[in-house]
């Protein structure tokens, strides 16, 4: 049986099955595959204010960062500005402005729509209040793009104890999202998120730190991507008849996950540090994942710091994920989001920091220029590359590499 016999019926057939929708509509429904999930993920995990060293407020500093991601047909660039200022006693505040300018020709877009561009902006603010050995924080984040709005509120409290050797942090956050459809003004759905966070930072020896983290996250509401479709055989009894992308994804309307991690940071006998981390994740969609990372930081002379690291990640697929479905009504819940498939990724990265000032200058105590680069390899085990016309199991497994760049300057004052 030749590959051409199993060729996919691509969007032209989709339009035929939805005579009321023109080509523009088809593109709209598909163009954003893979993006909404990212927004939700960001906001869910952004809620927990980075745990502070209770008893010490963060340093006053400002950062201006340019970021670039290029991989899998997706380019994302933009700035991130962060300013933190406190009164050096009890109060410190932080404001962050972040932009993603997205240009996407991802595999989902190419198989189900056409390339698109758009922009997401995000504002966030956090206030920290220090009282004795306790730091209380409250924050708010607002993210906006043409068809996704999200408000997130977060609170946390950190307590330092045992002579500042131990810091315990409890955090809670709540997010309220509006999911819209650019080409269907009547479409409006909601998704809400809650995040429970516990972490412990421990000084183990004069050269060794430990950080333990737990996040329990629950989502409720419209959790799927309104544009993405699953791949379904045209004829369940005849795979040679091809397949189509005309059946929308359908996710459960609840999702609960748990993640725990342990990270060690060790000061080496010469002036350098080694960091080792591990995270375990599972959720009630039956996705479980392992993440391991190791990095090494080495100051060079007085004004340079060099970082190098390696990270490995693997996950199982969600219960309701399939690369190819036999029938449009095969299951109550159906997904073909590659982030819910079984896959692994691994990356290497390095960074360079240059201290611009030998001594403080006016109000500026310190200034650095920084460059970070990461290369990531994504390898999927049950997400096929159907761009060539073949369908599973003849289609090859999808894979791609990504380059991630960061260039930023920081000043402390």
């Amino acid at each position, binding site marked *: 049986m030749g590959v051409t016999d199993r060729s996919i019926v691509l969007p032209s057939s989709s339009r035929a099955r939805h005579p009321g929708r023109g080509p523009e509509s088809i593109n709209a429904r598909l163009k954003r595959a893979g993006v909404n999930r990212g927004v939700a*993920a960001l906001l869910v995990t952004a809620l927990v204010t980075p745990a502070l060293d209770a008893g010490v407020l963060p340093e006053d500093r400002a950062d201006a960062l340019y970021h670039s991601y290029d991989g899998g047909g997706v380019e994302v660039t933009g700035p991130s500005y962060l300013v933190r200022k406190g009164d050096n006693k009890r109060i410190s505040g932080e404001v962050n402005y972040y932009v993603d300018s997205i240009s996407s020709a991802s595999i989902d877009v190419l198989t189900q729509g056409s390339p698109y561009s758009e922009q997401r902006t995000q504002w966030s603010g956090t206030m920290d209040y220090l009282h004795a050995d306790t730091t209380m924080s409250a924050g708010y984040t607002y993210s906006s793009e043409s068809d996704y709005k999200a408000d997130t509120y977060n609170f946390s409290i950190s307590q330092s104890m045992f002579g500042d050797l131990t810091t315990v942090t409890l955090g809670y956050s709540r997010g309220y999202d509006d999911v819209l459809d650019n080409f269907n003004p009547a479409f409006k759905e909601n998704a809400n998120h809650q995040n429970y966070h516990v972490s412990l930072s421990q000084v183990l020896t004069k050269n060794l730190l430990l950080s333990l983290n737990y996040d329990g996250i629950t989502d409720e509401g419209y959790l799927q991507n309104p544009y993405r479709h699953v791949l379904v055989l045209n004829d369940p009894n005849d795979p040679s008849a091809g397949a189509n992308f005309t059946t929308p994804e359908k996710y459960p309307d609840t999702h609960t996950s748990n993640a725990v991690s342990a990270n060690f940071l060790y000061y080496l006998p010469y002036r350098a540090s080694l960091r080792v981390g591990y995270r375990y994740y599972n959720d009630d969609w039956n996705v479980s994942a392992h993440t391991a990372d190791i990095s090494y930081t080495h100051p060079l002379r007085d004004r340079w710091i060099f970082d190098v690291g390696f990270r490995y990640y693997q996950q199982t697929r969600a219960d309701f994920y399939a690369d190819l479905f036999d029938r449009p009504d095969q299951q109550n819940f159906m997904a073909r989001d590659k982030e819910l498939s079984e896959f692994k990724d691994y990356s290497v990265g390095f960074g360079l920091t240059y201290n611009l000032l030998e001594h403080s200058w006016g109000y500026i105590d310190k200034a650095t220029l920084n460059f*970070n680069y990461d290369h990531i390899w994504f390898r999927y085990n049950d997400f096929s590359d159907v761009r060539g016309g073949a369908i599973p199991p003849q289609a090859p497994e999808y894979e791609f590499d990504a380059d991630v760049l960061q260039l930023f300057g920081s000043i402390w004052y």
Partner: protein
Amino acid sequence: MIRTGRLLLSLGMLLLSGCSSVEPWVKPYERAHLADPIMSFSRDPVSDTFIGHVYQVREGARGAEGGHGGGCGCN
């Protein structure tokens, strides 16, 4: 039942009294290494937030990302 309660109470008191007598095993003057910027789990928050987002968007797992804080816990 009452005896079990007393036992638990005594055990709890013992544990609490243990907390009050914990002596910092790393003295403040021994924390020079921990105060070095290279001993921070999050040396540049603006960078960590970004790279965290890169992975969150493309992976199923979420939460418990890395460590935070670090340093010496001193001013």
